[in-house]
């Protein structure tokens, strides 16, 4: 059945950051240089083509953009300056907005003012909530940072963290299922055995933690910076969720704190490096910056910095009230970061990328077995 061409889709993708896609005349240089473009995936040319022709259903049905780690080689090779790298980035943004049923992600990507407003709103709400919680419910005082009478007692913060984590996990999970459905579930002629699903499950945590695929790119530095930021962020999460009390105990438990310091350095260093890169625009993947990229970086950097201030003022300077204020501001960065960025914006890729890797392997196995079946019918060709 013929698929309807929709020339208007390109205009829509321009709002997601794509540019000059129409210049591509399919010489195939990009796919030739892309290290990940191997059968059955043609990265980035197939997506460029489907985008040019406005085949929305096809675009929604592919996870190829998630297999691209924006090394920027393709954009350098492109004779027509069609920026395939940036197009793939914009496709990831567009896909994120497709997976999110609420439509909020689409709103944020289409107008950065909306997203900024949302962020500010959420951070204000967080501030008010914490203050109300701190002064009224917990009867804490500004001057006390830890222990009984602390402005923000550990157990309250825990409840808040867990609640937030649960909410985010739920949202992410629905979007991930929708991603599975769009790319694999509704695909009639792809028969994937349950065993194949189970067998490859280990890929999810593996890619989540190590971004193994990113390491296969030619230049290793981008992978390392990303890994540093990511691991630091995970460490912080773990520390905050599990060892919060230990942090607030008077003596310094070096065994935990050293991880804290490392994670903070990783987060701060990585984000500053990324921001400087995006300002200088020397590497290809830092040439084009979408507003959402800025907001994402600013939030992390802000969270990390305020984290340090809070820790230093409490741990080293003993200024509890300053620590409390710092902690409040810290939360005003962290909550919007988690509440907005994860489900509706850039950070959701932490779920989509590992899932894409996993699905890629599952797809390849399924296709291989189907072809194997087909291979028998191929006429055998004896060695020359």
């Amino acid at each position, binding site marked *: 059945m013929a*698929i309807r*061409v929709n020339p208007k889709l390109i205009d829509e993708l321009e709002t997601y950051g794509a540019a000059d896609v129409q210049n591509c*005349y399919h010489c195939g240089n990009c796919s030739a240089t892309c290290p990940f473009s191997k059968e059955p995936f043609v990265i980035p040319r197939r997506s460029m083509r489907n985008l040019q*022709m406005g*085949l929305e259903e096809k675009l929604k049905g592919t996870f190829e953009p998630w297999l691209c780690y924006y090394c920027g080689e393709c954009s350098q090779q492109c004779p027509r300056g069609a920026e395939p790298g940036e197009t793939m980035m914009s496709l990831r943004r567009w896909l994120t907005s497709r997976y999110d049923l609420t439509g909020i992600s689409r709103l944020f990507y289409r107008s950065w003012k909306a997203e900024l407003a949302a962020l500010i709103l959420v951070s204000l709400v967080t501030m008010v909530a914490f203050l109300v919680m701190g002064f009224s419910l917990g009867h804490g005082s500004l001057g006390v940072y830890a222990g009984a009478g602390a402005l923000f007692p550990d157990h309250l913060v825990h409840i808040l963290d867990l609640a937030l984590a649960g909410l985010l996990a739920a949202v992410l999970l629905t979007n991930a299922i929708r991603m599975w459905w769009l790319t694999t579930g509704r695909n009639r002629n792809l028969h994937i055995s349950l065993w194949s699903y189970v067998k490859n499950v280990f890929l999810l945590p593996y890619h989540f933690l190590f971004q193994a695929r990113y390491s296969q790119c030619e230049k290793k530095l981008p992978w390392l910076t990303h890994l540093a930021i990511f691991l630091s962020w995970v460490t912080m999460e773990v520390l905050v969720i599990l060892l919060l009390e230990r942090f607030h105990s008077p003596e310094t438990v070096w065994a935990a704190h050293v991880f804290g310091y490392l994670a903070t350095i990783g987060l701060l260093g990585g984000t500053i490096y990324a921001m400087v890169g995006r300002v200088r625009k020397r590497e290809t993947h830092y040439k084009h910056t979408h507003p959402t990229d800025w907001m994402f970086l600013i939030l992390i950097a802000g969270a990390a910095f305020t984290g340090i201030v809070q820790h230093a003022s409490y741990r080293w300077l003993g200024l509890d009230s300053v620590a409390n204020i710092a902690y409040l501001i810290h939360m005003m960065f962290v909550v919007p970061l988690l509440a907005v960025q994860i489900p509706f914006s850039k950070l959701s890729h932490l779920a989509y990328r590992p899932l894409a890797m996993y699905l890629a392997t599952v797809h390849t196995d399924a296709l291989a077995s189907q072809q194997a079946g087909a291979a028998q019918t191929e006429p055998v060709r004896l060695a020359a």
Partner: protein
Amino acid sequence: MEELKIGVFICNCGSNIAHHVDVDAVREAVEAMPGIAIARSYKYMCSNPGQEMIARDIREHQLNRVVVAACSPRMHEKTFRNACRNGGLNPYLCEMANIREQCSWVHSDQLAATEKAKALTNAAINRVRYHEPLESLTAEMCPATLVIGGGIAGLTAALELADAAHQVYLVERTATLGGNLARVDLTAPHLDSARDLLTERITRVRANSRITLMLNSELQSLAGYVGNYAAIIRTKNGSGEVQERKVDVGNVVVATGYQEFDAGRITHYGHGKLPNVVTSFEFEQMLRKGRIETRHGKLPQYAAIIHCVGSRNKEFHPYCSRVCCMTALKYAHELKSANPACYVSDIYVDMHAFGKGHEDFYKTTSEVKTLFLMFEKNERPVVRKAGPNDDCEMLIEVNETLSRERIEIPADLIILMVGMEARADSGEVARLVNISQDQEGWFMESHPKLDPVATTTDGIYIAGTCAAPKDIPDTVAQARAAAARILGKIAKGKIEIDGVFAEVNEDRCSGCRMCNELCPYSAIEFNDQTRRSHVIPAACKACGACVAACPSGAIKGRHFTVEQLHAQIDGVLA
């Protein structure tokens, strides 16, 4: 017959001949034959010393015949004829024996190769005994030229000739000048106006006193040969009655152009049935009126351009019509500039952007967001009316090659890039001026690479799209090339007719007229008064068909007479 003094020169050609043929044995075998004044062998006969040796021997030994046993006559016959001429001997008194391409290179057995070389040399000697000196004839060259076709090619050629102060008769079938170019608004890739190109030419043609412009006229007949053609032109004036006028010309430039492919022949495109499917020329009319709109006066939101309509496929024409790709890009630009909100899809087979500035033009067309869709040339798209809930007039279904998807393209207006084909009446024009056509009906040039504007018939030149599809720069270049060739001949004043042609011995011709119909160049005229046939030397191409067929043996094939060939047969079997 004067006493024969034959010089035989046998070439080693380095080792090419000497490697398999014992050259000295051949020389010794030939030396003793009657009439041989001198027999030599030499390393490279075609070298300057080799040629000088021939000239010197002719003078010193008063040679009146020369035989050169060396490579193929197709290679160096001219060289050795010149050598004889330099020695003061008529060039036609020289004969070659091919003992390289047809002997040493193809027979490794040295004994057999040498025997064969002897036989071939002996045959050449036998033949050269009967050679007669031949002089090339000259004929006056009439400086006037007939140009058929008033398009850009005809206009350019006419101007070029008239500017060189020569009389030109420009014959145009229709009432207006400009031909196909007059039906075009802008030209690719610089979007300059076709009207400006033409008006400049037409005003100069009308102003030039040396160009006799004959509109509504056709060539009725053309008789004679290069330099001496008599053309009869038939003109229909306003009131429908016909006058005929005879003009004498030396050369003819055929610039009759092309006709567009009838898009109706491809039923899938629905031209003629769906109102908004237009051909490129119909779209040009829209552009000239300055308003791009569908038949219902609506600005098209979706426009589609389909390439290769009638070109590059098995069913209609295998060749590429060369100009449609850039014209299609021009339309994409014009559509977008007329209505920026219009989504243009360009459905093509391959993008032939071969000329100057074409690739950039292709790139800028991409930049204005034209959607390029490729299809396989023999799997043409199908156009159908869209359904009620579609937001477009028509849908084009095609297998898109780049994405290997079967797609449907929305279109409110479809422009068919119709290809070029030979004019329906090109057969008559070809017969009138006695030139041949290839199987597609295009006129055949004398040599596709070395001689593109001349034809195998001397004095008849072809320029522009009547020979093959081409764009304006090539057409103008060919028109000027044809004019230059003619000016070269006019400057010489006389035309040289090669000495080799057929000749009727009127004392022997019985008027049986067996030969009249055999000549494809109608070079044999029958004189009703004297009841004798006569060969026109200039028109005769020396194929020898009439010589062999004349039952009285009254037609002599100069340089290929019966005596010469009989002698060669006996010689080769000696």
